[in-house]
């Protein structure tokens, strides 16, 4: 049952072959058993989860069933959830109990889904390995020596190790797609503005976007139906007609033009990842798609541009964590400045401090034009690259990451090498486009490889269909790691 799709679980629940309390208990038991080893969850709260499960059973009994009613979903600990501890992976919020629900949480609550627990993540979503979490590293279930990726590493691990039926993530520079790839699951970052950011703790506001992480593209589509939609509390939320993301799942791929950016298959891509991606592309050709060579000439600039803009916004977004109203406050301090300084020094980890420093620097008088403004200009060029590319193709495909999961500790001492591992995912955020990752095989070391599918604005339904058609004829997404 732990391997069942969301649709299969929903059918069991609707047919009353199992109750939500039973299903939730089963996942909780597994999560409780595995978590000491994998550390995928920062907070499990059986009472809160089971109360929701009981409410879901009442909904089902009353015939008010929606597609996700009664299904336990793990929530990234970046989403504020009423009465749940919400830490964002930081000591700063170690004991913060949220008094309100994020829009995403509200949407799942309305759908009758069960919050299974809050998943581990890089501190304030700053990281690509989950190693910056104050609550410890997360192990990759496929290989315990490897990182699960980040920042949504806990969610990826929880889904891969079948501790949750599905999970949420957020993606600022690849934080859904990269851990999905490294843990062998499916995940989609929607077009910027499709999912409300209200109640999602901000890292870089102009890049942050929430999305689903699940076993398959079909599961992601079901999740998208719950998560997407206009919210007047987020001024960047887009007012659009509601979409059914299951709409295009069965669309045949004949005539689909797949763009292959030469920059994504160049130096730096490891051979085993390239092989798995090539095999996937061959499968797509078999399904009737054609491939076309394209170029995204500013790809190389995306990492430096990102590391100006994201820290700039973060340095300001994280100013509210000052120890005055909530969050960590130093025990002993002198004057006001000392209180700020000590509380923030103690509350934030090294990577967060590094980015606050970078961001403060690039926004400072005399540097703003050279860094921030320049980066904004290049950001527009990067977006234009994609616009030009979509004249020639319907979707873009390539590897999600240059290599399979690296080892725990391998890059944590070398931030720049860590930053460069996001080379294929970052440009998508800068352009505000949707991006998806699905498993497409394994590397030489037995660790999963992800295939990235990038679509034009608002083409999530089409992309999910493109992914689903591949998953109909392959079984990479059905494989799960042997857990201890």
């Amino acid at each position, binding site marked *: 049952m732990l391997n069942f799709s969301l649709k299969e679980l929903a059918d069991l629940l609707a047919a009353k072959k199992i109750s939500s309390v039973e299903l939730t208990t089963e996942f909780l038991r597994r999560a409780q058993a595995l978590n000491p080893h994998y550390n995928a969850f920062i907070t499990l709260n059986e009472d809160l989860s089971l109360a929701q499960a009981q409410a879901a059973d009442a909904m089902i009994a009353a015939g008010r069933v929606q597609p996700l009613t009664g299904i336990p979903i793990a929530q990234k600990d970046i989403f504020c959830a009423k009465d749940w501890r919400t830490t964002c992976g930081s000591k700063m919020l170690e004991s913060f109990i949220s008094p309100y629900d994020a829009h995403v949480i509200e949407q799942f609550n309305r759908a009758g889904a069960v919050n299974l627990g809050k998943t581990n993540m890089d501190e304030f979503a700053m990281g690509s390995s989950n190693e910056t979490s104050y609550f410890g590293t997360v192990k990759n279930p496929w290989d315990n020596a490897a990182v699960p990726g980040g920042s949504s590493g806990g969610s990826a691990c929880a889904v891969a190790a079948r501790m949750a039926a599905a999970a949420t993530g957020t993606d600022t520079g690849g934080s859904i797609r990269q851990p999905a790839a490294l843990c062998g699951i499916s995940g989609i970052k929607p077009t910027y503005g499709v999912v409300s950011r209200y109640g999602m703790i901000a890292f870089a506001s102009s890049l942050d976007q929430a999305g689903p992480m699940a076993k398959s593209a079909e599961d992601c589509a079901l999740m998208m139906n719950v998560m997407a939609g206009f919210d007047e509390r987020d001024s*960047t939320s887009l007012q659009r007609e509601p979409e059914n993301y299951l709409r295009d799942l069965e669309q045949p791929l004949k005539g689909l033009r797949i763009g292959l950016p030469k920059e994504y298959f160049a130096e730096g891509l490891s051979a085993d990842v390239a092989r798995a991606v090539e095999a996937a592309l061959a499968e797509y050709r078999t399904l009737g798609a054609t491939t076309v060579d394209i170029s995204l000439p500013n790809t190389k600039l995306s990492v430096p541009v990102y590391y100006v803009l994201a820290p700039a916004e973060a340095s*300001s977004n994280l100013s509210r964590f000052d120890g*005055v109203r909530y969050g960590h406050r130093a025990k002993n301090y002198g004057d006001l400045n000392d209180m700020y300084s000590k509380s923030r020094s103690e509350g934030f980890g090294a990577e967060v401090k590094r980015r606050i420093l970078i961001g403060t620097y690039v926004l400072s008088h005399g540097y703003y034009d050279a860094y921030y403004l320049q980066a904004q200009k290049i950001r527009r060029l990067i977006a234009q690259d994609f616009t030009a590319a979509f004249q020639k193709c319907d979707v873009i495909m390539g590897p999600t990451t240059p290599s399979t999961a690296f080892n725990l500790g391998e890059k944590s001492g070398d931030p720049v090498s860590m930053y460069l591992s996001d080379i294929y995912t970052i440009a998508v955020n800068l352009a505000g486009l949707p991006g998806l990752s699905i498993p497409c095989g394994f590397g030489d070391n037995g660790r999963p490889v992800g295939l990235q599918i990038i679509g034009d604005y608002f083409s999530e339904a089409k992309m999910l269909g493109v992914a689903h058609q591949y998953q109909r004829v392959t079984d990479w997404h059905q494989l799960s790691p042997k857990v201890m």
Partner: protein
Amino acid sequence: MNWEIVIGLEVHTQLSTVSKIFSGASTAFGAEPNTQACAVDIALPGVLPVLNKGAVERAIRLGLAVGGKINSPSIFARKNYFYPDLPKGYQISQYELPIVEGGSVLILVEGVQKTVRLTRAHLEEDAGKSLHEDFHGMSGIDLNRAGTPLLEIVSEPDMRSSAEAVAYAKTLHSLVRWIGICDGNMQEGSFRCDANVSVRRLGEEKLGTRREIKNLNSFRFLQQAIDFEAQWQIDTLENGGKIQQATVLFDSDKIETRAMRSKEDAHDYRYFPDPDLLPLKISEAMIAEIKASLPELPQAKQSRYMDEYGLSPYDAAALTASREMAEYFEAAVALLPQQAKACANWVTGEVAARLNREDKDIAVSPVSAVQLAGLLKLIADGTVSGKIAKSVFDALWNREAETAKDFINERGLQQISDSGAIEKIVDDVIAANAQQVADYRAGKEKAFNSLVGQVMKASKGKANPAQANEILKKKLQAYTAVGN
């Protein structure tokens, strides 16, 4: 040595919206601390700002009223600094592209009109308040005011004396109430001025170094602070000193300014566009709609009063000191179209003086415009003299009668215009005042006035003064002629 004082003002007007600029919390003044601060105002993790349309409309009203340019788009920017009453660690303001640019205000100082140009007006949020008493060595924070909408109106350095600065501030104060965007309550901080003051030698073109006096919340303080500051700068320069750019505070007890911080320790606010708020676009239709809803503006009214009623610039300005005053005047003139000048004199004279003495607003004047017009009509048709009319006005003010006519009839205060009756009184006075008559005959003109006084006294003030004059003169001449 002759010095020229140069002054520019930054005025913070609190916009009269019911809710805050970026949240739904109430803006009402005087509530218990922190009872009007919602999740957005206290900057919980994950919350987002949503712009209040009412604040935008009010800013546009001001922009149109001063003939400024309404920018579309305008941009909200974050002004970053740490202070306990600033919950987000940044203030949302406008920096590079404010909502209003340019425009001007016409002021009248000692009968001379002068144009003060505006640089800009921008929207921003107010901070909370630190409470330093009652907390035993600690500080309390009240966030009720945090997020209150402000429009900061910045002038060019066009004023040359404290009198001009006060005239400008008063004109602006009247204007913002006139167009209904601010209640103008200075005690509650709804209208606060910062004054940028510098001095230069007469004839010098380059501006001197300025110092900014913060937070002046009365016109008297504004005048005192500028006078002190300008004299201090002149003295400093004459003694061979230099002015350092600085922010200064005004001590209203000692009537002096004191430096708060110098340019060296000025903050680097690291302004950048707020990624949570989209560029603010304003349609032509919205501008047209707001334009149509604006009342006739003081400047237009003044011109009309001078053209239509032949009033002096001084009277026209006085009558348009507030919208209520102008409405009162116009209501009176509507009933007495031929007596506009008399209406103006009475409204700016007797009515204004009584209101002022009793600290009442003209909107609640005990003598209504209709009552005043009734009285002025009786003066015009000769029923009462101007002198008696003042006592009738007092009676109306004290609500001793409903209308002037009733009161005059009741007390028999009608003017005596019957020449026979006046002649009789004049004869009696001449007979009883031989000495003055003799003096007059000896060429002492002053004696005539005394005799007029006697006539008026004998008639209990009711004799038509012009007639009394004429008859007395005629009789004295006849008397003189006979005597010779």
